[in-house]
Each structure stands twice: as structure tokens, then as C-alpha cells.
């Protein structure tokens, strides 16, 4: 799933490790999500949204909806 995690992280000048610490996950998890190799669960997606103070839709792109629309 495409997402804006890398951009949002760069805007805040956070490293992957820093974001991982804020989320309470491993740096590998942040890297896998950022590169679109792993889609987070809904609870983790909500947590990511909370950390960036954004909605889930503002971070993750709903590719199926984009194709339908």
C-alpha cells in the first residue's frame, strides 16, 4: 500500500528509529511499511495517524478506491 510515511517523517526530521520508538515497534517495521512491503494492521495504522496527528486517509492511499473512482 502506498503511503506518505517517508515524507511525513522527513517533514518532522525524524529518523526511522525515532518514529519506531514513538510507535513502539521495530525500525524494521517502519522500513517495511514505508517501502510498501508490509501493510500495517488497523490498530497500528490508527497509531501512526495519531503520532502524525492526521487521519489514516491522509497517510495511506486507498489504491482500490482510487482505481474505482
Amino acid at each position, binding site marked *: 500500500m502506498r503511503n506518505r510515511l517517508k515524507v511525513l517523517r522527513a517533514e518532522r526530521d525524524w529518523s526511522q528509529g525515532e518514529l519506531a520508538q514513538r510507535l*513502539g*515497534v*521495530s*525500525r*524494521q*517495521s517502519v*522500513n*517495511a*511499511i514505508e517501502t510498501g*512491503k*508490509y501493510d*500495517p*494492521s488497523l490498530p*497500528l495504522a490508527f497509531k501512526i495517524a495519531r503520532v502524525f496527528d492526521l487521519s489514516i486517509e491522509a497517510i495511506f492511499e486507498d489504491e482500490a478506491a482510487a482505481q474505482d473512482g
Partner: protein
Amino acid sequence: MMQPKSPAMRRLMSRFWPLMAAYLVLLLSVGPIIDAPTASLGAYLLAGLPAAPLVGIIVVLALYLLEETDEFLKVRMVEALLWGLGALLIISTVWGFLELLAGAPRLPLHWLFPIFCVAMGLADLLARWRYR
């Protein structure tokens, strides 16, 4: 680069290596104790002793899946376990047919667990590369 381990992974390692050491010690010490294989209850218990730490390793792997709070690392472990089991089933089934139909040498059953561990280890390495 060496990746830092999660607390659950550190616990897994601290449980896994003593069990592996116990397996090797039992494997090397039980053989010489049993002089000639006899079908007695005592011989069965003694011969089965090296397998006890392997049962422990399965329990330790299950505990890891229960204790790991990082969902991505948990998924990676489940993938490695499935690859390990898949490789084990394929290798043992194919070899079984080779034994049955082509006179291949017998594959000792106690090799199955090491085959599973090696396949799982390789799958974990592949996953690390894939998710790097």
C-alpha cells in the same frame, strides 16, 4: 548491519540456545549409553531423550509468537515457520517416493527437525533481504 532485537526475540534466543546445547549434549551422550538397540521401555525412554529439547524448541517458538508485540516481526516469523514446514514436507515426501520407487537410501527420521531448522533459517535470511 546488525538489527536490534525485540525483547521477545531476545527471550527467544535466551531460551533457544540452552535447549539446542542440551539437544547436542543428549545426542552425543545417549548413543554410547545404549550399547545395543533393544525394544524395551527403558531403551525407548533413553533413546527418546534427545528429542525432549526439540519439543522445548517448538514450545519456545510458540511462546515467541504469543509474546512478540511487533506485528511485522511476528508476521516475518510466521512466514519463516511456514517456509520451514513447507520445505520439510516437500523434501520428506519427495525423498519418500525416491526411497519407495527408486531405491534411494533411507532418510533417517531424526534428520527432519534439522532440515526444518535449516529451511526456516534460510527463509528468515530471505525475509530479511526482502524486507531490508
